Structures are given as structure tokens and as C-alpha cells.
């Protein structure tokens, strides 16, 4: 019974973390049709910046979080302006370029922090909330709450603001949108900044919990792609729902059985979705 509750809590946290990373990727895929393989590395950069600002520079966690978001957003803008803009007509080339960015960012992290050190980020919420036999670390609760707030904010942004409508218009039909006077270039940069900033925030949230190392983005990106496909490409709501379903499934299987079995099962599920429900959970109904 204890294990069941612990696993549920762990699943909730894993869902929050996965959702945070995936919605950024879903956004950029829906808007710009870019398969950004470097998304996991933006997450990693977020974690590193948080570490640097909070530990190395001695400022605390929240300035670290803010810097992480700002720097990854800037990186995203840079990627759009310098790279993606030139390769609009070449999607596979775009994918390759993101792999290049992935390698550069990983190497930068190795050079910056060393490959054989474990960088520690202290959480501003140490300690554990104890309810009966339950031990709920405060920081994990924080991650869950922060993820929910961010997702609500993003949904509001996309549905209630002019910017959000413009983004969705571009995602639906770029040519028509530009004929309506929407600047594709401007929207692309802003969307990329938003996507990268979300990844950076996810990295910052997770930094006190996981191993901060140059390769921490690798497993994250695979999960993110699985989730996006399950949720339906381009659908934010789909990505969120799929994150919860997938992470819960994965957490339970890896706790009760084995994490390798969980990964294999997850991949089979993705394959199943691709074969039988290629439009994912949200189908064609929602695009961003």
C-alpha cells in the first residue's frame, strides 16, 4: 500500500516534468514544423544555468530559475534567426542542424562544468511534508504546482491573447496567416523563445532532483517525442494528457517491474499509436 502511494506521487511528479518539457516541443513542432532534437539540450542548459547562478555565483535558486529561462529563450531566438530561418524549405536539413546544436551544447556543458563532476543545486524547499506514512518532498510538490501553473498560463496565452491567436493561425496555415498581415518571422522568433524558455524552466525545476550532467537531455527528448506523437502532433492539450498517461504508466511499470521493460513497453505503445491512431489522442481536432 505504501509503495502504491509512493508510486502515485512519483508518477505525478514524473508527469509534471515530462509535460513541461513536451509542451515546448509540441509548440515548436506545431507552429514551425521543426523537429528540434536539441530541445533536450535546452532543458540541460536550463539546469546548468540554474546551477551556475545559484551555486557557483552564490545567488539563490529563484534568480537561477529566472536566468535559466532568459538564457534558454535567447538561445531559442538565436537558433531561429541564425539557423532555422535559412532552412525553411529543407526539413531534414533542419533536423540535422538541430543535431549539430545538440552536440555543440553538450560539449559546451562538458567544457564548462567538467564531465566527471556532479553539480548540485540546492532546492529552496528542502525537507519533506509528512502526512501519516507519506513522505512528500516539498520540492517535488513545487514542481507539480509550478507545472500546472505554467500549463494553465500557456493555454490562456494561446487562447485569449492576440499573440496566441497569431501563433495558432501560423500553425494552421502559414501562408494565409501572412496574407492576413501576421509577420511569420516575428511569430517564429517568439514561438521559439517560448518553446526554449519552457524547456529551460523545466531544467531549472528538475535540477535539484536529477543528475545535472551534460547528457541529461538525452532520455528527456526521447520521452518528449513519444508523448507528442501520442498526444497528436501540434496539440498542446494532447501533449499534456499524453504526458500524464505515459509517465504514470512508465513509473508504475518501472517500480513494479523493471525500467528497461518500461522503456520497451513505452516504445511499443508509441509504435501502436503510430499504426492505429496516427493523429494521436487529440486527432485533427486541435492544432496548437
Amino acid at each position, binding site marked *: 500500500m505504501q509503495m502504491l502511494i509512493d508510486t502515485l506521487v512519483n508518477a505525478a511528479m514524473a508527469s509534471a516534468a515530462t509535460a513541461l518539457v513536451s509542451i515546448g516541443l509540441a509548440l515548436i513542432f506545431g507552429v514551425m514544423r521543426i523537429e528540434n532534437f536539441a530541445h533536450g539540450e535546452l532543458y540541460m542548459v536550463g539546469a546548468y544555468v540554474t546551477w551556475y547562478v545559484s551555486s557557483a555565483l552564490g545567488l539563490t535558486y529563484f534568480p537561477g530559475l529566472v536566468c535559466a529561462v532568459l538564457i534558454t529563450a535567447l538561445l531559442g531566438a538565436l537558433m531561429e534567426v541564425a539557423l532555422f530561418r535559412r532552412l525553411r524549405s529543407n526539413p531534414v536539413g533542419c533536423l*540535422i542542424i538541430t543535431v549539430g546544436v545538440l552536440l555543440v551544447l553538450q560539449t559546451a556543458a562538458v567544457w564548462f562544468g567538467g564531465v566527471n563532476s556532479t553539480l548540485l543545486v540546492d532546492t529552496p524547499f528542502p525537507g519533506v511534508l509528512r502526512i501519516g506514512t507519506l513522505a512528500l518532498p516539498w520540492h517535488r510538490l513545487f514542481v507539480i504546482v509550478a507545472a500546472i501553473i505554467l500549463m494553465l498560463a500557456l493555454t490562456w496565452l494561446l487562447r485569449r491573447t492576440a499573440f496566441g491567436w497569431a501563433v495558432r493561425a501560423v500553425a494552421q496555415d502559414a501562408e494565409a496567416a501572412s496574407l492576413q498581415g501576421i509577420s511569420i518571422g516575428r511569430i517564429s522568433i517568439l514561438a521559439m523563445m517560448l518553446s526554449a524558455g519552457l524547456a529551460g524552466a523545466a531544467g531549472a525545476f528538475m535540477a535539484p532532483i536529477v543528475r545535472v550532467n551534460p547528457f541529461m537531455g538525452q532520455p528527456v527528448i526521447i520521452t518528449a517525442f513519444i508523448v507528442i506523437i501520442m498526444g497528436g502532433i501540434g496539440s498542446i492539450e494532447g501533449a499534456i494528457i499524453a504526458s500524464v498517461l505515459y509517465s504514470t504508466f512508465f513509473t508504475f511499470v518501472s517500480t513494479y517491474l523493471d525500467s528497461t521493460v518500461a522503456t520497451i513497453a513505452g516504445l511499443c505503445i508509441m509504435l501502436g499509436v503510430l499504426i492505429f491512431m496516427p493523429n494521436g489522442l487529440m486527432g485533427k481536432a486541435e492544432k496548437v
Partner: protein
Amino acid sequence: MTSRQTWHAIGAMTSIAAAALLPVVSGDYYTSFGTEIAIMVLMLSSYRLIVLTGEWSFAHVVLQGVGAYTAAIAVKDFDWPFPLTIAAGAAMAALMATILSFPLLRMKGFYFLMGSFAAAEAIRLLWRKIPFFGGTRGLSNIPAPYLDLGGLTIDFGHPANFFHLSLAVVVCCLFLMWRMERARIGHIWRAIQQQDILAQSVGIESRTYRRLAFVIAAAFAGIAGVLLAYAFGTVTPNRFGLNFALYLMIWSIVGGTRTFYGVVLGGVVLMIFDESLRFAEELRPGVYGLILIGVMLFCPQGLERLLQSMARVLPGTRSDESGERGTLSRPGKS
């Protein structure tokens, strides 16, 4: 033969002859490296068969693994000789590809890419889990081929001998692929990539041909896997992971997929570059990444375009660009 084709033939034969001389000028280390390059060339050329039909796959490397594991088990458990293991590796890989093609070929584009990744990675993780395949440690102590034919004995465990053996096998495979591409089937593959619907309207069943490309490519990947198993004497599951699949794609793009030799060029140049950066150990991937970005930004058609520009400067070549006959428009990048 047109003068362009003469140049091609001369170029090909010169490269092969030069390659064969490698063990004469270098020690064991670079000779083995040469074997690795040869195997990689086979992988790239077979990968290109799939790319010709307009799809990018992440499963190719795992299919090579199928060949490698088949060889390892055939040799260690059943003592099969080299020619038999090559056939077995190719057959098993082709079989696996056939099975995978049924679910996978219903998808296209990005979906196909992710689907191929999912299927391949699931297979790879099964190799890691199941003790029969050696688990995480894989299978090792695969003995090298040994030829004992009426007085002529060759121990292919020596790097130079194995290099020549691999070179011979790879050249044969390349020749087969080259012929295939020139034949009707090659034209159909290009047609499918270009204009799927048009092709179907003239009666070409595109899925069947895509399947054919996928399976044939896998057979060659299986052969590459068999060579790999002998080359290192060991087969481990990590050798067939996403990283290697990504590099295959990268080398193909950087080299260029329009011509037959483009991918070969990309692989050879980048592998040599990668090796020469060994002194900068930890920073190597970063330099590699910068090169990728540079090539994609400034030379998106690949290195083969550069060679063609160079070729145009040489005397005796025609000045028009479309050297290949074909009634279809030139296939662009997918």
C-alpha cells in the same frame, strides 16, 4: 560509354586500388580503421536505397545489428564458415525488415522516422535484456574467419587480411547496388520519391517498391553487420543505438544523396575528420556539431555538389548538369 561515365569508372577503380594499398602504408590501427570505413561505406550506400524512395529511417543500424548478432551466434554456437554467415546475416536482416515493414510502411515522413526508431530501439533493448544475446555485455570471442583451401591458408584475424576481405565484400555489394539503381527498379524508386500519386496512377504499387527498397537495404546492412562482428570479435547492444543511427543520417546528408558516391564521400570525410580530432577528446563532438551546422548552412546540397563543381572544370566533361538519362525530373532533397 560517355566521357562522364569514363571519369566515374576511372575514379572508382582508382579509389579501390588506393584503398587496397592502405595496409602497406600504415600499421594495424589505421588498417582496422580502414575496415571500419569500408563497413561504414556499405551501410551508407544501402541506407541510400531507402532514402531514394523518399524516406529516412532510424532502423537501419539495428538491422545491421541483426546481421551482427546472427553472425556471432552462427559462428560461436554452430561454427559456420564465413560465406554461410554472410548469407545468414543478410537473410535474417532481410527477414526482420520484412516483418517490420508491415507496420512501418503505413507511415510516412516524420512518423515513419519515429516509428522506425521505436521498433529498432525496442529490439535493441530486448538484446540487452535477454541472456541468449549476451545481455548488456553482448557476445564476444568471435573467432576470425580462416581459409583453408587446398594448400592456401589465410588467417583473416590479421588486420590487413581482414581489411582486404572486407574491401572485396563491400566492393561487390556496391557494384550490385549500383546496377540496381541503373535498372528499372532504381527508376521506379526515384519515381516514388518524386511523385507518389503520379507513379501510382501509372500502375506502380508504391508500397511494394518501398518495401523492396527497405528489405534489400536491410540485407546489405546485415552483411555490414556480419563484417562488423568479425572485425571486432565482439557484438554489444550499445553499438546499435540512436547515436549511430543519427550519424548515418548525418553522413548521408553531408555527403549528399543525389549521386551514388555522395554518401560515401560524406562518410569517409567525416569519419576521417572525427578520427583526426582524437586529441581534442572531450571537445570532439562540439567541433563535429559546428561542422554539421556549417555544412547545412553553406553547403546544403552536400559535398557531392562540390565534387561536381570540380568535375565541371575538368576537360572532356559536358557542361550540362543532368548527366543521367531519365524522363522524370531530377529528384531533389526529400
